């Protein structure tokens, strides 16, 4: 049953996933080219001085990319389920409502991870070429809240889209915006160091919110 639901989500989303994958890899690839360009036209020590010491986050243009990808995937995955109340097909299957919804979310999270990780690997790879390990770990730790923000955005999008009433969708939209802003308060490397674990735990707890929306959908709220 787990495989079947994963199969369904894969068939539904595979072309979109491919598009998102290509967009993210292309974007990160573009960033790598820019980084290479900067090191070719400037002295390395000047770049290090500006970027390492003064805290210029050269990949700040990536900041909201994971969030956008999470929102887009969440919409692509769950809007079709709400059209003509197709979610009823899943809720009618012989497995628990929470389990069914959870498997959908796991599928989405896996696909999202599969979009993020190659891009992250590209950035990590090119950074390893130009910067020492200390700085790479700073880069990755600085990127992590944005990545968590992407997963959070996906879960909050599912939460909002699956909610059957428009009034609460608006409330959840505001709630999501308020919560997601907390992932993007960084202005220097490692600002989130002391709260990273809490942030990761909070992100994982967001998993239950779409289950609540699914439950409300199944109960016929908004009908």
């Amino acid at each position, binding site marked *: 049953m787990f495989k*079947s639901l994963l199969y369904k989500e894969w068939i539904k989303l595979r072309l979109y996933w491919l598009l998102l994958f290509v967009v993210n890899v292309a974007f990160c690839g573009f960033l790598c080219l820019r980084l290479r360009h900067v090191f070719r036209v400037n002295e390395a020590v000047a770049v290090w001085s500006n970027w390492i010491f003064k805290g210029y986050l050269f990949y700040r243009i990536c900041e909201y990319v994971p969030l956008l990808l999470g929102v887009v995937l969440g919409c692509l995955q769950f809007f*079709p389920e709400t059209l003509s109340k197709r979610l009823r097909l899943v809720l009618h299957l*012989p497995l628990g409502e929470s389990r069914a919804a959870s498997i959908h979310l796991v599928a989405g999270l896996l696909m999202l991870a599969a979009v993020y990780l190659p891009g992250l690997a590209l950035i990590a790879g090119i950074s390893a070429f130009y910067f020492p390990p200390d700085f790479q770990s700073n880069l990755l730790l600085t990127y992590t809240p944005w990545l968590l923000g992407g997963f959070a955005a996906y879960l909050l999008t599912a939460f909002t889209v699956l909610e059957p009433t428009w009034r609460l969708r608006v409330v959840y939209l505001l709630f999501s915006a308020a919560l997601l802003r907390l992932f993007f308060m960084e202005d220097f490397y490692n600002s989130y160091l002391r709260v990273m674990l809490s942030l990761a735990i909070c992100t994982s707890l967001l998993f239950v919110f779409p289950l609540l929306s699914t439950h409300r959908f199944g109960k*016929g709220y908004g009908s």
Partner: protein
Amino acid sequence: MNPVIECRNLVHYFGAKPALKDVSWKVQPGRVCGLLGRNGAGKTTTINILNSFLTPTSGQCLLLGEDAHRLSPAVKARIGYLIEGHIQYGFFNVHQLERFYAPFYERWDPTIYFHLMSKLDISPKQHVATMSCGQRSQVALGLVLAQNPDLIIFDDYSMGLDPGYRRLFVEVIRDYAADGKRTILLTSHIIQDLEHLIEDCIIYQRGKVLIDMEAKRLIADFRKYSFDTKGDFKDFSDDSRNLRVERGEKRSAIYGFLKPEEARAELGKLGVPAGNNFQQENISLEDMFIALTGKY
């Protein structure tokens, strides 16, 4: 014998508007039951409650002995449900659909599904979203039947279907139910299709059960008597006695569970002069339905 479907004192309000007013009925095992009613009578509300997509304001539904809102996965596997509009996943083709659903059902038998698919003029990789309404209906039907369920609920199976597909549906359902081992509940607006299909008939009127009886008995006992129109009188209806009188320009009629003399007596009570040519007419199930529920 325990009923397969049981609704007990269902009451539901949408805001302040009542949709169901203390509805109770049962469907026994092996029966094909038609749930009929005009738009807004409460059929879809009842179906949604049965499928736990709606929580009633009060009352309870049981399916195969379990509370419909707390069905175990084992019982869910024994219930097939065809959603209104034959909703299915448009991004699948027929093979992918079968591959998706099969692992959920222990009794899955794809024979009838692929048999129905072979009759459709579709290519193997064609997505459901690109099929016609009729083709989609066959896909949805095939998937439900392949589950080998003990109970099937068809929510307005005829929606959007041309006569050919509607006929196909009726024939498949009839063949499927022939062994008496399956229980079927169906709703539809095309009453003439159901006349030779359903064994039990439940008719809703304004959120209440108007009729709950065997279809045979309804057809045998509910009669129409027509007569020449004489004098001026208004149309009359009494839901509690399933009685209706309609005035026509030339011919008028009285409907009800009435023998001829009872019909004349009712007309007399109502002060309606029974004109010449008082005779019983054969009427279809659709005529009975309209007579019972009205045209407006």
